[in-house]
């Protein structure tokens, strides 16, 4: 089955993406599967970290949202241990007018502004609410430990 024009265009556009701290490249020969890297936003506990994610475009994309998951371990109230992300535009508030690029920017924004009131990882959210400074320290420590820009890190894990 040939790839829809829309996906080709987006892929093209992502190739030229610069200065936003997001990167998505096609994984092998599956043109619907992307390796993603997101830089932790400045001023957040994730600053300095490079987070790896996987992104898959389902058959009826863009009518259905892409499936995205963190591969790098991350301490965040809206991201669970399996790397699943609680983000409205990936569920109910998905609009076909959104793109891979906008999705990744939203995820980056989520790193900058965690929302412990709509948690996916309950234990983390609890900590975040009880002692925000301590929670942020843990997030910083995890970032240092797991989100370093080492190209062979994934194989290691």
């Amino acid at each position, binding site marked *: 089955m040939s790839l829809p*024009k*829309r996906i*080709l265009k987006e892929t093209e556009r992502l190739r030229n993406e610069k200065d936003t701290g997001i990167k998505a490249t096609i994984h092998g020969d599956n043109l619907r599967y992307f390796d993603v890297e997101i830089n932790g936003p400045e001023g957040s506990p994730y600053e300095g970290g490079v987070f790896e994610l996987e992104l898959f475009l389902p058959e*009826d994309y863009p*009518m259905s949202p892409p499936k995205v998951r963190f591969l790098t371990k991350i301490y965040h109230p809206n991201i669970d241990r399996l790397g699943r992300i609680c983000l409205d535009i990936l569920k109910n508030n998905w*609009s076909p*007018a959104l793109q891979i690029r*906008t999705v990744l920017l939203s995820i980056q924004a989520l790193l900058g502004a965690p929302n412990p009131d709509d948690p996916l990882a309950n234990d983390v959210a609890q900590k975040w609410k009880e002692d925000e400074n301590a929670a942020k320290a843990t997030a910083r420590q995890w970032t240092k430990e797991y989100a370093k820009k080492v190209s062979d890190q994934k194989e290691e894990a």
Partner: protein
Amino acid sequence: MMSDEEYFSDGSDGTFQDDSMRFDDVEEEDQYLEDTRFDKPVKKAYEVDFKVHSDQQIRSGQQAQFEEISNILGLDIGQAALLLRHFKWQKEKLIEQYMDNPDSINKAVGIRPEAHEDTKITKVKDFVCDICCDDGDSMETFALPCGHRYCVECYRHYLTQKIKEEGESARIQCMGDKCTMAFDASDVQAVVDDDTFTRYKTLLDRTYVDDRESLRWCPAPNCIYAIECGVRQKQLNQVVPTVLCDCGYQFCFGCGLADHLPCPCSLVKKWLKKCEDDSETANWISAHTKECPICVSTIEKNGGCNHMTCRKCRHEFCWVCMGPWSEHGTSWYNCNRFEEKSGIDARDTQAKSRASLERYLHYYNRYANHEQSAKLDKELYTKTEKKMTQLQSTSGMSWIEVQYLDNASKVLQQCRQTLKWTYAFAFYLEKNNLTHIFEDNQKDLEMAVEQLSELFEKPVDQLANLKVEMMDKTAYVSSRRIMLLEDTAKGLAEDRWKFNVELV
């Protein structure tokens, strides 16, 4: 005053009298239901007013309300529909708030009354669809008044998925990111195919009935009717609103379960939960075989009748309490009544829990037995029916002449259903001097039912001669049921019954 005849008329005129415009939304719905005229004989205490609506009537009922709002607020029908659905059909509240602040409501609902010229399907020069990235001057495009224009193909795909896969109807929004502009029926119709639009309308009807406390779909499989009834959730401890759909299914309007008179919904829920939790303990009861209390030979139950006669020793006994049948039908009859003896002097917890299990089993036994008997009665009737057809041809009795059997069977089923629930009712009933009347009524109905049930077990060649007796018994059984239901319903309405649990 608005009567619902106007709402649910076939929409031929769609006009409303002006004096119906009152501005208290709380009263509104109650009001138009109380005004409804039902041409029925005098109501029994356990009967409630209700009305059966076809899907056509449900649809024209909505249409009439759209037209009314459209006229009052000067909006088109589609916009009026979106507003009404947003306000869950609370017309007075809608009108009041809309007159106060139309802009904020338009925004919340996703309509733009001042601009609806742009919504048509058009071709646009040099258009590129941002969703599929296709282009071409011949491409058809579509946009809601917000102007988020994409190709019709993409909108069709989007709407079809929303409707057919996600089951959405009343709140479908523009494809644009964060745009809340809403699709009305004509927008949807302009884009999707006929099949999807039919589905869409069905879904809309469904939300309409679901959104209104005074409406409920008939739960019978494949039934297309909805029932309208004025009994509210908060009244369910005083009344058991039992309705009869045109499809023949009798059910409770309050909870949607099959007819459970005389038991209030909350007790039904408790009882079913209890039965589920205790099902293992109680399982042995529903077994089909028991032993004769005298000679211990195995006895199998065939029909619904509980008057058993042992094939071996001819001992007659009651299947339910295993006591001698000779005591049943006399003043000694106490098969339905649980004697609270062991509970009183039970001191240790084990004895107490045994006593409470015994008490539960007493009621559950009889409850389950009537359920089982109803099934057996029905099976027996199916067999009898076949034989009646033979009898018809051999004895020359007409189809009309054998209808008394059909009627007797239906009454029997209904009474077993009622009896079944009297035991759940009794389980939660606190004993006092008023409960004796209830227990007597229960006993009388049960005895009459067993006698009628017994007639069904007679050989087919005798059935023709039993016609008069059977008809008399049927009438009597019916009257006993009415007696019992009248008493229990009045008791509920007057708050006369004391239950050993909270009715929540």
